[in-house]
């Protein structure tokens, strides 16, 4: 079915919907991973964004029940060069088109995704609209410009869990409404370190990794405050990834400020930005962000290079961090942006990239062990 993608600057791409009629809007960003589209689709950090994959052939291995990073598809729309309707993989349970259509997410193909990517690279991430009903570029441009900007928007509220849940045996296990979040909530106190994970848009694989290295994990809504967390008497606090701009997530920043020094803290992605803000730093929007699984990050402590999975449009401003309190531990070798920070005295560290991978390389999996070690020494 014929469709149009129009960016806020008026650039229009003809394309076809492979999921039936529909309309979608949001910020359009590109991801350079050649594998892992299902993980991308279900990553809550993409909330509010329409994602185009730079690899042209998408859908090759279908979708399955295992490679999910949240309970649903999170992207606003999915844009590919050539949709592959004939999946081939022993784990495949469904075609990508059925998966998207089943959750009402628009998928389009047949556009020059490289041209789109170059346009974003040169012009920065842009608001855009896709429609199968409105094919008039003038109208679409006007409507694209009416879409609110991501800067200053709190998207975390859209994706965070409404109720706390326990991560158990690789799956979320919702806690009963009447269950009180207190020190008695844990099942393995004494046997495993206990970690509260604040869900700003948590990817399941982070929880899987935390569980795998031996934590007991309880995930709480983003707005859970410091006293509620302390009431659970955990051994550590985890700050999850999440979508969009960190600055409007003032409640999260406040919670972290209050818990700094009281609990060992580990943050990933948005969690890194929130820790940065809590430490008095500033964040800013990158031109077009880092989205892919080939980003080289140098660990400044060991000197080694990790190939990392990334998905972020905002970053922590290196100069805004007080050098007396905070060390930059990791940098991105492509553009020298901050990829990891650590408090010099307090037990708190975070990384901008995704050590849990999924999709992506497992080079940075050591960070989960590092968090566990921190718990022992703290």
């Amino acid at each position, binding site marked *: 079915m014929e469709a149009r993608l129009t960016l806020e600057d008026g650039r229009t791409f003809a394309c076809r919907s492979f999921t039936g009629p529909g309309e979608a809007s949001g910020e359009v960003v590109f991801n*350079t991973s*050649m594998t892992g589209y*299902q993980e991308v689709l279900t990553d809550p950090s993409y909330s509010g964004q329409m994602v185009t994959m*730079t690899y042209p*052939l998408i859908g*090759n291995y279908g979708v399955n029940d295992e490679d999910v990073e949240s309970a649903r598809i999170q992207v606003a729309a999915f844009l590919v060069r050539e949709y592959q309707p004939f999946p081939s993989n*022993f784990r495949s349970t469904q075609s990508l088109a059925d998966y998207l259509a089943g959750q009402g997410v628009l998928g389009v193909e047949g556009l020059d995704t490289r*041209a789109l990517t170059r346009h974003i690279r040169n012009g920065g991430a842009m608001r855009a609209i896709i429609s199968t009903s409105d094919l008039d570029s003038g109208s679409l441009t006007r409507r694209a410009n009416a879409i609110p900007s991501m800067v200053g928007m709190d998207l975390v509220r859209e994706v965070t869990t409404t109720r706390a849940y326990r991560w158990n045996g690789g799956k979320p296990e919702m806690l009963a409404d009447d269950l009180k979040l207190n020190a008695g909530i844990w099942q393995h106190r004494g046997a495993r370190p206990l970690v509260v994970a604040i869900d700003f848009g948590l990817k399941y694989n982070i929880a899987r990794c935390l569980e795998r290295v031996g934590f007991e994990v309880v995930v709480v809504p983003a707005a859970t405050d410091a006293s509620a967390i302390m009431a659970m008497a955990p051994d550590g606090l985890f700050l999850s990834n999440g979508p969009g701009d960190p600055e409007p997530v003032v409640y999260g920043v406040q919670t972290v400020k209050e818990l700094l020094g009281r609990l060992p803290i580990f943050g990933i992605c948005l969690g890194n930005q929130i820790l940065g803000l809590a430490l008095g730093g500033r964040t800013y929007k990158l031109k077009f962000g880092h989205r892919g699984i080939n980003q080289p990050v140098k660990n400044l402590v060991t000197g080694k290079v990790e190939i990392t999975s990334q998905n972020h449009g905002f970053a922590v401003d290196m100069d805004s961090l007080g050098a007396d309190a905070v060390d930059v531990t990791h940098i991105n*070798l492509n553009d020298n942006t901050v990829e990891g920070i650590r408090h010099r005295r307090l037990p708190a560290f975070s990384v901008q990239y995704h050590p849990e991978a999924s999709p992506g*390389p497992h080079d940075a999996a050591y960070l989960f062990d590092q968090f566990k070690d921190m718990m022992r020494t703290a």
Partner: protein
Amino acid sequence: MPKRTDIHKILIIGAGPIIIGQACEFDYSGTQACKALKEEGYEVVLVNSNPATIMTDPETADRTYIEPVTPEVVAKIIEKERPDALLPTLGGQTGLNTAVEVARQGVLEQFGVELIGACLDAIEKAESRDCFREAMNRIGLRIPHSGIANTMEEARVIADDIGFPLIIRPSYTLGGTGGGVVYNPEDLENIAKSGMDASLTHQVMLEESVLGWKEYELEVMRDHADNVVIICSIENFDPMGVHTGDSITVAPVQTLTDREYQAMRDASLAIMREIGVDTGGSNVQFAVNPQNGDMIVVEMNPRVSRSSALASKATGFPIAKIAAKLAVGYTLDEIPNDITGETLASFEPTLDYCVVKIPRWTFEKFPETQDLLTTAMKSVGETMAIGRTFKEAFQKGLRSLEIGRFGFGADGKDRPEADGALPSLDEIEQKLVIPNSQRLFYLHLALQAGMSIETIYQMTAIDPWFLFQLEQIFLMEKDLIQAAETAGRSGTPAEDGLFPLTADILARAKAFGFSDVQIAHLIGSTEKVVEQTRKALGIRPVYKLVDTCAAEFRAATPYYYSTYETECEARVSDRKKVMILGGGPNRIGQGIEFDYCCVHASFALREMGVESIMVNSNPETVSTDYDTSDKLYFEPLTREDVLHIVEKEKPAGVIVQFGGQTPLNLSTPLHAEGVPILGTQPESIDRAEDRELFQAMLKKLSLMQPANGTALSIAEALTIADTIGYPVIVRPSFVLGGRAMKIVYDPKDMETFTRLAILASPGHPVLIDKFLEAAMEVDVDAICDGSTTIIGGIMEHIEAAGVHSGDSACVLPPHSIGSEMIAQITVATKAMAAELKVVGLMNVQYAIKDNQLYVIEVNPRASRTIPFVSKATGIPLAKLATKVMLGKTLAELGLTEEVVPRHQSVKEAVLPFDRFPDVDTLLGPEMKSTGEVMGIGTDFGLAYAKAQLGAGQRLPLSGTVFISVGDEDKPAILDVAMQFSDMRFDILATDGTWSHLSANGIPAERINKVSQGQPHAADAIKNGRIQLIINTGTGNEPRRDGYTIRRAALKFKVPYATTAAGALAVCRAVSALREKPFEVKAIQDYHG
């Protein structure tokens, strides 16, 4: 960490001659490494026996030894040059094996040479099946159940344990020589034995069969700080059971989820660390069970490989160059990514296109061998194509193969012998089930016959994802036919009033990779009409960049491919530019020599300040390195694809005379479109290629040629042969490498071969020449600026006329042609160059019989011998020819007289007979060699000895010579036998030869022919009693005897000569070797 300063001089071992499994990818990697190390200020010493390489150009390394790549010779070079380090990982398996042997012999220790890149221990761990299995066990990776056998008894026990079918893999071989699939105990006896013979260590692995599993490869790089990155992932279209060199391969992987891919990545990293490859690139192969995802490790190569060359071209990431820098101490994050200019080498390239590599086979040259693809590699070349979809890349790849096909079928070229009629379902099934070189076209026939994806999958185990892509191409074909029929019926043709296709369907077909030729065939139109209509509709390709990063960063290096999309990224400059057409995939008859010339053209253009634009489709080559030319278009070499680039770039001219027959064949169609052809004009090319025009020219110049005629039918051919008298040489016109060429002795054979020749070059006449028996052949390369002609080199063939010039050894300067004849040759060559108005290079083949000079053929283009002549004389002919084509005179370029070197240079051909069971090793008019080596020495014997050693023939200094020759060779062989006798060799001879020798007083012992019963000559070979074999045959006698002996010689690696002239040369070589051990000398010292 910065580069090491404790080493200054580094030795690199090249891969030697082009053989199956080891082609010009190692010139590409070696050249990159030399350049990278020199750039860092190291002194580079290089050894490689292959003169047709860019790496052996005197400018590439500091000290270049064109000497045999053997441990003894490398030891001599080490002793002389005293390098600080040896980098063994860039010269293929040959380079690696040689380095290992040199290390084992204690030479490195003796002279304090450090092995860099990979240590001996790591190489052994990766290469020895036993050690590798243990290593994989240690890191918990699964490899197929297997056992190592050193004897046949062990092999039988292990086979019993594993069960059939199983796979035999010899240790330390290249391209899986000697390996194979074993289905039963009988196969086991044959294949295990040949595997042990092929192995350097007489060892094979018997392995659980994973036939039908999906096959993958990862190209991995590691630096000494233990940073590891994956450069490229590759998925094989053909599942396990077909050697990866014979598989169609695709980058990146297509049917793995991220979870499965990351498991493979983790495994590769663990393997790199466990094997202990210090720095550099490696290749790891995996098999995956399509039913449940089980993954096993197939093998690992701790060096750059054919796949790493492919990966470099597929991603833009120069693996060999980076490997060289890592070897001298850099880490990945210290090396810039040249393509983007702004990022570093420590990342993993990401592709936003699909790459398809398709092998090119050459079974037609070896009709005695079966066209089967197994675990032993058979292909001689490959082509790579890039598209935004698999379908586009696959079809581009098929037309890049230059086998007369224009895509995935739909071109009217299916089964011309049956007028395109579909074969039976049985035949299709058979061709699908047992992998063979024609299978990809039978896949099309299967779809035509209505077979489903599921059915084809059951027969081939080719992943259904790929089969679906093929089906989509096929359905588009049907749509096009349908559209044409509908338009025809309704009488309301679309758009332009005549053309039956709409812009929409035409655009879709082009995006599916269809060529205009295919579309024309499907709708019953012509290429020209399709082209004109399409362009009028604005449907043209755009060019996109290969940039390593999927457009995330701006790319600095212009490396392009075409696709049918909206945005074109080609940056057309306003500089003067010249386009060079490359040679496409390697094949027998058109290989690295032509790429060498194209690269030189590019270098010459750079020197002249002219922008160079390279067009080629061969991923193995130096010409397709991103920094060889100012711009690289990785595209098929067809009229349509080349014209598109010309229209975009508007070059001042196109060079067609360097890439072999491929671009030469394009000169007329391009010229017809007004494309300026540089140098010799298409009319002259036609004049040299067209029999009648050529004959008229020779007549005009009073030059002789053997009596001849041309025929378009079998009847005509028979009449001509009768007139000029047998024997005659029969061949098709417009083909290179003597394809389908044959010496014919009687009318019955005449009929058979004329039919084949008509098939090989349809529509073109069959050429019939009088065969000049026992004539001497001479090759001449000349350069002409339009008025002055200078002879580049005159080469005297060792083998007599009748052996293709590409298979014949030759010597420069000639050693047995008188000065008067040399003068005659020079005059004739210059006269023809002037007559043909040659501007650039020209090659002439002459025959001399009874002191009469005959012209055999003239090629107004670069020949296969240009690099050899350039290395022998120190004159860079291809570079000079390029400058001449751009208007310089030879005088301006300083070439005013012929250069005749004082030293002797011998070129010897290297033949692939060990790859093709059942093929006779006799040489003939059809070219069969894959490569060549060069030997340089102060006298002929020494130069010839070096060439033989370089080609893998270890000539004995003493022992027994076996002689068995036909009557016509008996007089000539006397002298040879006499000399061997004088050198105290024992002589064994069969009946006739024995009588002749005895009658002439030469002591010899008689031995049975094979047909006379045991013990016979073949037994003596097997028992190691014979050190040298001289066995000639005309190829026309009942040849079972000679054939058995020659195959035995091949199998037991006993050096052999199959012509009397070759035997004499061998004799002189043995004599020279006995006089004194030979010395090594750098090429820089010859032409200093």
